[in-house]
């Protein structure tokens, strides 16, 4: 049933014929040779009558880490949740615009949101291992409930996912203990392992370290660094240093608009917008 094979790489750049419809791309990206994961244009989102995202144009590269920054309430989480159609859980939301992943329109009528979320995994601010499940069951639940029952395959995925989440060495001897018996930082890495186990193409992280101490945070940042090699990672963070440390590109949102999007170095050292400059310098937000 579920297609859980590794993502097939799709040709880089905008789909043929669409290039003229992508006007507002900053020059530093338009000229780049990056492989695009998300190709988003004119994207708006409303909660009922309240517009939370305004006409967002952004192309997010694959095999790179993109940070989303901006003051509280500017629409970071909303944007992230739109990327795997999670916002549809909130009744009364509505979107407009284009949102493509590797050339495929994620909002096309024929696309099942369940399939979108299998391709675009998510890690939440508050770690949330399933309380009735062991460490191993937590990691494997996504595969099992999608019909995978091959024991050798599951065992491989369990180890591989926990290794990728840098948790294997700490838990390999008590995989049958409850997931919630772990420490906060370990629980968050367990949630990352759980998300990686279904082999998504993209991993979304909404302030994954905001409830963690500096040591646990460092572990997760290190792990994000390693994920960069094979995934598309998009991370929302309030921590400027974190954005600077882990990301290749940074997008600055303000009041629901994408204000500036560029190489992380450029955003932090030499932003072209004065609001961006004020925000990264800590003068507001």
């Amino acid at each position, binding site marked *: 049933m*579920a297609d859980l094979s590794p993502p097939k790489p799709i040709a880089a750049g905008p789909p043929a014929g669409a290039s003229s419809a992508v006007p507002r791309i900053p020059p530093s990206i338009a000229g780049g040779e990056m492989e695009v994961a998300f190709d988003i244009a004119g994207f708006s989102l409303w909660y009922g009558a309240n517009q939370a995202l305004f006409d967002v144009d952004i192309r997010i590269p694959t095999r790179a880490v993109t940070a989303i920054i901006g003051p509280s309430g500017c629409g970071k989480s909303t944007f992230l949740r739109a990327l*795997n159609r*999670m916002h549809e*859980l909130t009744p009364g939301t509505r979107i407009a615009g284009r949102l493509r992943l590797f050339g495929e329109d994620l909002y096309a009528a024929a696309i099942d949101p*369940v*399939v*979108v*979320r*299998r*391709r675009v*995994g*998510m890690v*939440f601010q*508050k770690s*949330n291992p*399933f*309380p*009735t499940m062991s460490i191993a069951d937590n990691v494997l*639940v*996504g595969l099992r*409930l*999608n019909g995978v029952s091959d024991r050798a395959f599951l065992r491989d995925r369990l180890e591989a996912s926990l290794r990728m989440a840098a948790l294997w060495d700490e838990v390999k001897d008590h995989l049958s203990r409850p997931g919630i018996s772990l420490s906060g930082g370990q629980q968050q890495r367990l*949630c990352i392992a*759980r*998300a990686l186990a*279904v082999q*998504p193409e993209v991993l979304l992280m909404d302030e994954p370290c905001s409830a963690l101490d500096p040591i646990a945070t460092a572990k997760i940042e290190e792990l994000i660094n390693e994920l960069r090699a094979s995934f598309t990672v998009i991370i929302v963070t309030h921590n400027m240093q974190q954005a600077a440390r882990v990301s290749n590109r940074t997008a600055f949102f303000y009041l629901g608009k994408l204000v500036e999007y560029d190489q992380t170095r450029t955003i932090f050292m030499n932003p072209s917008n004065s609001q961006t400059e004020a925000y990264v310098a800590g003068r507001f937000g």
Partner: protein
Amino acid sequence: MTTPNQFQPSARQHAWRKFVSGAMAGLMLVCAAVVMAPIFLVLYFLIREGATSLDWAFFTQLPKPSGELGGGMANAIVGTFVLLTMAASIGVPVGVMGGIYLAEYGSERANSWIRFMADVLNGVPSIVWGMVVWALLVVPFKTFSAYAGGVALGLMMIPLVMRTTEEVLILVPQGYREAGLALGIARWKIITVIVVKTALKGIITGILIATARVAGETAPLLFTALGNNFWSHRLSEPISALPLLIYSYAVSPYDDWHRQAWAGALVLMAFILSLNILVRLLSRDRKFT
């Protein structure tokens, strides 16, 4: 104390306040004792009047014809369990699934109507359930039956189970549902495998409470199960139940039957009490985070 402080009570005021506070606490203790008293009163009378008639025969023998001493309530004890099993097989699936619908699906508007109706149903007098099921199942089939009794109790269980199921499901943090969805798991699987499982203890607690609630019901059985002085061999025959037999023995003119009625009430009470203790044990550590 150098600066006068109007909020600082004088020694006399202070003593008066302490007195009032103590008196109120004492009064409330008395009220609490008044709440507790009936339960001890019930247990005291049941044990005093009923314990002497509790012998092996009580649990193994059929009722003796009037006038003869001895005999037991074996058929009524079994009958109560048969009726409760039938009631649960109606009330649990319908109630649990209804509760899942309320908590996980359904629009706010429809749900508030369903909730309202469930609450009205919870308030329907039990004798009314008996009459309705009598009209639905006894009259058309021209016989009182275990089926009719089971249905009457089952219908009573549905709204009870439904509301408690809904309440415990709502307590399961939204984060678990979102985490499941983010793994690309279908919604119904998340609900059955993750959400319901997380709330399972609470759901079982609700089922036990509903079972205890209907276990002692007499009125809905009067017109449905009717009662039976012998073993019932088919569910389409009238069947005995503890509350029914207690009732008919209690209103009889025989001393021996009165004692047996007390004993029957003691057994019923012990059963309901043990269900409640089970509920306490189950709900002792109900937390999800």
